[in-house]
């Protein structure tokens, strides 16, 4: 569509990129149909097309963000269903990234919102702080209902609701070091331990390490890596996000130069989408652009890597698995068939819930910052999943696991936990009764 930016505005590389993205949009409106917030709220302002228009208007006029724009951009889940739907190839992901940075730089949020965001940014990306915070959260649980009655404190209530009921187990999975291949060596990879996942559910990477060892893959847990930066990136805190990215790029580059890496394995698709975008995020940093692009090129979701290993086909077992494709998996990384094909080959009966393209409402910190829309999406997702009458739910992202588990009694596991079990690992605890 038509745009109007001055040459001076276009001298800013972020604006220049956004202008290119906007030019692709033909305003056909297809994106509205698959947008979870439009489907829920029925207002074009809460649809991709509406947001694109709001962003365009704000950037063209060189205006600081205002309350209205912030409201509608904040409601975006960044699920990227619109990117899958868009026939014109509008790169909404990088457009809304730019809008979020612009908001962070030009808009002063109300005090309570600022405090919550600062708290999330200071705690979630750091495993030790997050673990401590979860301890406090368990103590605070009884007050969740009370907090939710005060509008500004709703996010705190939502946070307490999401905190696991029992203390997180300590695990060696994130301890730096080399895990040798258990069989004849056929590959060498690094694995991302990340931030929230090892605290919430260390079993996921434990299963991954066991499975890869049995398949003959040497795995490095590099010293010094950490949060991929996605959490703060989605808050528009670009400098902090880029610092996380640079740190991880350094760590992995060292490993690439030391022993070579076939892949950087990621077991949380939310992180995968961001790490695959490091090359883009750091494109303007001459010291990092090349290294970051190499890291992005090596980043692979665990299921993407496993399909390359030709796992043997196993006898069918009587277990119905509802596969929930995380938005970051299907829309962010366009991985749609690999997880299901692996599960089927491992003998599971895979069922596709209706409206599989719609987000479960987790979306990073969305379920904390937008608890009402998130709860509606969760209810809709759980209803669709339960309609397939599954024995277990499989997915590839810790955020979805936490979100969906808080709405159903059906056990939910990471895809790799089922695969590890099928290929000789222990039966997952959550399936003890099955």
């Amino acid at each position, binding site marked *: 569509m038509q745009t109007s930016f001055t040459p001076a505005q276009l001298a800013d590389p972020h604006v220049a990129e956004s202008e290119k993205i906007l030019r692709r949009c*033909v*305003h056909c*409106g*297809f994106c509205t*149909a698959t947008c979870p917030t*439009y489907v829920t*709220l029925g207002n074009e*302002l809460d649809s991709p097309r509406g947001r694109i*228009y709001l962003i365009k208007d704000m950037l063209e006029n060189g205006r600081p963000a205002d309350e209205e724009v912030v409201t509608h951009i904040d409601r975006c889940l960044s699920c990227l269903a619109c990117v899958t*739907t868009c026939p014109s190839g509008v790169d909404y992901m990088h457009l809304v990234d730019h809008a979020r940075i612009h908001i962070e730089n030009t808009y002063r949020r109300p005090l309570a919102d600022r405090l919550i965001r600062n708290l999330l940014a200071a705690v979630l990306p750091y495993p030790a702080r997050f673990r401590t915070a979860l301890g406090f959260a368990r103590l605070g649980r009884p007050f969740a209902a009370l907090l939710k009655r005060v509008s500004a404190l709703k996010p705190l209530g939502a946070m307490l609701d999401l905190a696991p009921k029992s203390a997180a187990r300590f695990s060696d999975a994130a301890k730096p070091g080399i895990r040798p291949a258990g069989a004849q060596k056929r590959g060498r990879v690094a694995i991302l331990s990340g931030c929230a996942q090892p605290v919430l559910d260390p079993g996921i990477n434990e299963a991954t390490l066991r499975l890869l060892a049995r398949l003959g893959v040497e795995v490095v847990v590099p010293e010094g890596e950490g949060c991929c930066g996605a959490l703060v990136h989605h808050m528009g805190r670009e400098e902090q996000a880029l610092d996380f990215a640079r740190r991880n790029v350094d760590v992995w580059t060292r490993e690439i130069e030391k022993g070579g890496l076939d892949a950087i394995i990621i077991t949380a698709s939310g992180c995968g989408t961001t790490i695959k975008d490091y090359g883009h995020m750091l494109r303007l940093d001459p010291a990092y652009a090349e290294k970051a692009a190499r890291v992005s090129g090596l980043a692979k979701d665990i299921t993407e890597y496993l399909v390359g290993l030709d796992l043997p086909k196993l006898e069918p077992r009587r277990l119905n698995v509802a596969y929930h494709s995380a938005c970051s998996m299907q829309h962010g990384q366009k991985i749609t068939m690999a997880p299901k094909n692996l599960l089927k080959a491992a003998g599971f009966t895979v069922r596709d819930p209706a409206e599989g393209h719609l987000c479960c409402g987790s979306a990073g910190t969305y379920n904390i910052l937008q608890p009402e829309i998130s709860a509606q999406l969760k209810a809709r997702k759980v209803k669709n999943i339960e309609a397939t009458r599954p024995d277990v739910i499989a997915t590839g992202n810790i955020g979805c696991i936490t979100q969906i588990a808080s709405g159903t009694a059906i056990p939910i596991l990471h895809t790799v936990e089922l695969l590890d079990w099928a290929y000789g690992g222990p039966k997952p605890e959550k399936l003890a009764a099955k």
Partner: protein
Amino acid sequence: MSEAIRFLPPRQTVLSRRAAIVADLADLLPPECLVHEERELVPFETDAFISYRRLPLAVALPRTTAQVAAVMKYCHRCGIPVVPRGAGTSLSGGAIPQEDAIVLGLSKMSRILEVDYANRTATVQAGVTNLSISETVGIDGFFYAPDPSSQLACTIGGNIGMNSGGAHCLKYGVTTNNLLGVKMVLVDGTVIELGGKHLDAAGYDLLGLVCGSEGQLGIVTEATVRLIAKPEGARPVLFGFETSEEAGACVADIIGSGIIPVAIEFMDKPAIEICEAFAQAGYPLDVGALLIVEVEGSDAEMDAMLASIVEIARRHGVKTVRECQSATEAALIWKGRKSAFGATGRIADYICMDGTVPLGKLPYVLNKTSEIVERFGLRVANVFHAGDGNMHPLILFNANDPADAAKAEEAGNEILKLCVDAGGCLTGEHGVGIEKRDLMRHQYSDADLAQQMAVRSAFDEGWILNPSKVFPLEGRE
């Protein structure tokens, strides 16, 4: 922004009362159903005919027929123009507002109210998307036939306004042939029902009048549509030709021999390349024109019909014939076709024409279209419902170059006139909207237009419903 097509000058009496009108609307609607902050109005300033834009006065997003009626009653009493909006996917500017108008959006009314298999009907709110009807009843072996390319997003209300068609309308007819009843709010807020679950109603066929009235006779809030049982099987087959003329002549011959497939879709070389790049559907890239012919029924029926079609195609020098081998492949073939317009956005801005011509004239009109567009120094991609003679030349241009945009509009007007002169009409399914309004005099005599406008006045004496659309402005300001 283009300026060639004028809007009615805004009513100053309305503009000057803006704050009071917003306050009154706030009494009629819950806060989340009313948009009035200037910045929030911007995304409603246009639809998919994006060369024209006007900010509305406010946007009402009612949840119930009663709220629609309350807003209409108020606007009628105060003489405030109302522009109805479904999903805002109109390619003719049917949902573009004007400065003194309230946009009445039906997007919050998106529930399927009843599915009645015994009567083969579904009753839905107007904001339900076209595709979601078929998705809801598909599991039980039914579907809703009209399938505009925008069916993923466009609403039934909008389909009724424009009497929308689609690829599969060759066999099943357009919206009016599949619509059984509506609940509608008249301009003064009166709620009426037309038709029902039966094929015909006693008295005048007012339902037929409402379907295609572009939001000028009332606001449809609910619709009862006919459901059709899915065929045993369906198979799209790709026919590649050297030239568009051969493909066009083949279409006329297929229809002329009495064969009615479910769909005959046409793509010329530029369109094939655009769609293939997006959908990777396996369209042949070494041909000059492509027909997607879909047949349906039992295997024996499909084989028999295909054999006859292949024989006709051979007479027209068909180069490649490819039957699709799986449901996935069929889905990709249709995905590519239905995304054609949007996918064109990958290479250029475009405006999409909608003229319909007698089938025998297809090769002539295709040739002339290329000539016209070349004369303006522009490019064109053709992708359309060939079996219906419903052409969609996409004129490619650069929206950031005003001269280019003006040329595209002029070329478009010439093409539409060409369609009319060839014995066809201005619009097959997108509606007149604002885009083709000033060409209506090329299609109709003044007496014809006067009669249509008299009907319109009978429903809306003050002309407040979607006032700048359909009828030329001369003599009515």
